[in-house]
């Protein structure tokens, strides 16, 4: 390390990165030279915990893997368990699952748009986007009874039904969302200060993205067509008419465009579901204590941040033998490290926010939950020793 370089630790407690991870940047003046990600601060040992709970109790663990993509995790978990156990779910339940899957995508993308605006210092847009996001949050709360963890999918179907008499009101809400999203597309593409901070920032070419196996909007902003709803349709996505959004900018502006256009597509899908939902049963009664036949299933879902896989192995008991969750953000870390190199310090928050990191998703492998205080002490001591080393240089 030449003498002019110094290391800026960003995270795990940093206003820009509200996620429990830490990146060590070696910077030379204002440009970033090297990045070392350190994840694992929010490690809850979910997979080990899931091996000692039955299938219904696991529903509520997978729901809490991450705050904003709780429904995606549950859709994937129930899909995997039903495939392993050979359980068929009624047609109407599929429609309701798709409806919630897309509503949560709108809610998560709008949340990200606000946070990204905040990262580049545009708090006004943050306030406006989050005010308009309340529309979809109230809609979700009205149907599922909760703003975030909706607990709608369950093994064998869905837990709550959509009342037909409310469809016209929901259509109006969805139209208002589409109209507001169009306004933000116009602002994001004409506001000069946003363009200055987004064009060419954190660029990654299509080849590098494929080489580093990036997923979701992060990959689709570099031109890689990898939307699982299109490449490997699950639930009803082969029947629903919607576009495969991917742009070739490769920079932060590309990520903004992909996510905002996807929000519009999600609104279209929700309206399609409301128009085509058949009547009928919404769940096949699955007794919480019943057993699942022996089998294995890998179920891939297109969560908001990218491709999410739930791989489950059942051995005939009412608890899974092994359940693997790989959240999209872990797949995006190698590509974000590439994006950060060569940029400015000022761009670190927006490039990091570019992949919409959700590290609570990423950190759920090994067992370490109540030990929080212990790792806490570690942080202080590790940073203190790091401080000493840094001064000695």
């Amino acid at each position: 390390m030449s003498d002019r370089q110094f290391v800026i630790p960003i995270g795990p407690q940093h206003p820009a990165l509200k996620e429990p991870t830490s990146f060590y940047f070696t910077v030379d003046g204002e440009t970033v030279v090297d990045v070392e990600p350190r994840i694992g601060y929010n490690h809850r040992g979910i997979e080990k915990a899931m091996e000692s709970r039955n299938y219904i109790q696991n529903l509520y663990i997978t729901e809490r893997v991450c705050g904003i993509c709780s429904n995606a995790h549950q859709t994937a978990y129930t899909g995997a368990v039903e495939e392993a156990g050979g359980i068929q779910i009624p047609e109407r339940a599929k429609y309701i699952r798709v409806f919630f899957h897309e509503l949560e995508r709108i809610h998560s993308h709008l949340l990200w748009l606000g946070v990204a605006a905040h990262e580049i210092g545009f708090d006004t847009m943050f306030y406006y986007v989050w005010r308009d996001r309340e529309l979809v949050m109230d809609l979700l709360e009205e149907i599922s009874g909760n703003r975030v963890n909706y607990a709608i999918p369950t093994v064998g179907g869905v837990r709550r039904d959509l009342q037909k008499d409310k469809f016209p009101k929901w259509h109006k809400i969805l139209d208002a969302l589409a109209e507001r999203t169009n306004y933000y597309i116009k602002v994001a593409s004409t506001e000069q200060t946003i363009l200055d901070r987004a064009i060419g920032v954190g660029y990654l070419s299509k080849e590098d993205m494929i080489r580093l196996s990036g997923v979701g909007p992060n990959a689709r902003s570099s031109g890689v067509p990898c939307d699982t709803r299109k490449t490997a349709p699950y639930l009803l996505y082969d029947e629903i008419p919607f576009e495969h959004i991917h742009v070739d900018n490769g920079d932060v502006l590309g990520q903004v465009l992909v996510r905002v256009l996807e929000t519009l597509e999600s609104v279209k899908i929700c309206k399609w579901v409301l128009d085509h939902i058949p009547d009928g049963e919404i769940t096949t009664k699955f007794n919480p204590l019943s057993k699942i036949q022996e089998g294995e299933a890998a179920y891939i879902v297109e969560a908001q941040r990218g491709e999410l896989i739930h791989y489950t192995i059942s051995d005939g008991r009412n608890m899974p033998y092994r359940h693997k969750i790989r959240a999209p953000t872990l797949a995006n870390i190698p590509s974000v490290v590439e994006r950060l190199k060569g940029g400015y310090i000022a761009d670190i928050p927006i490039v990091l926010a570019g992949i919409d990191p959700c590290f609570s998703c990423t950190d759920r492998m090994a067992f370490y939950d109540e030990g929080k205080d212990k790792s806490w002490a570690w942080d202080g001591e590790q940073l203190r020793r790091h401080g000493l080393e840094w001064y000695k240089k």
Partner: protein
Amino acid sequence: MSGLITTLIAVLVFPGLFFILTYGLFAQWVSRKAAARLQNRQGPLHTGWQGILQPLADFIKLVAKEDITPAAANKTVFNFTPLFIFALPLAATFLIPIQSITNLWSWTPVASFEGDLIMVLFLMSIVVLAIFLAGWSSGNLFGAVGATRVAFMMLAYEIPLSLVAIGPAILARSLSINSIVNWQAESVAAFLAAPNLWGLVTGMVLFIGFAIYVICLLAELEMRPFDMSEAETEIVHGWQVEYSGKKLALLNAGHDVKMVLAAALLTSLFLGGPAGPVLPPFIWFILKTTFCVLILSNLSVLFARFRIDQLVSGAWRYLVPLAVLQVMAVVALSGVI
């Protein structure tokens, strides 16, 4: 003897220390409330009518809070720079004509001498030096980065700021703010009496100067589009990161006074200062400066934050040539008027 008392009152109470401080807190309230309303939210509410006492409440809270000096900090510099950051803008406000004690309808600044405009500009750049020392001496990584950014910013906005400030001085053929204000009062009265083409042209040229001056003030006050020196999402709180308690209270009060000074300079140089038909001068002064604070607050809510290199390159590529052209136009005009 009576002269001494009036100057004492002038310095300590009326257009001096007490007035500027209360007006500073009021300006902070105006800016916060306007920003809130523009962003469709409430803004401060519970302290006093519509939260008008909120800045005072913050100030008192901070004074009561614990005051930490970090071990790695350079103690003397760290402890004394907030004093400079607070005192220097305050001293500069004494040179601004607001209201004379003795007679209600005239305005004489507390102290006025030929060249006090240069003095004010000098004091404002010394404040930047104090801010740099404050950030650098705090011994914190983020403080150091914030301090270097403040220094970079000074490179960017200092030259267009001073160039454009000289414009009205050339027209008024004097470097004292008081005489600039008097000249504006007369020329506006003259123009209203007999509107002629040259009057319009000088108005246009001065308006361009006003716009450049507002942009440079946004940078000097470290407000939104140019607040990279305390960018919350990148370097926590920039150069103020290690300050707490009384020192932070002083820094915030300093920032308020600097905003008042900036708005006051804006009004005195371009909007005719306290001159106005019916109302007494200091009412006009308050109206005009509040209007300027509203402009600053609206602009700060409107944009995202630039990067430091964008500011410096943008300033040198656009602001400086524009300022030079503006001053040349003013010089040409001064020949005519």
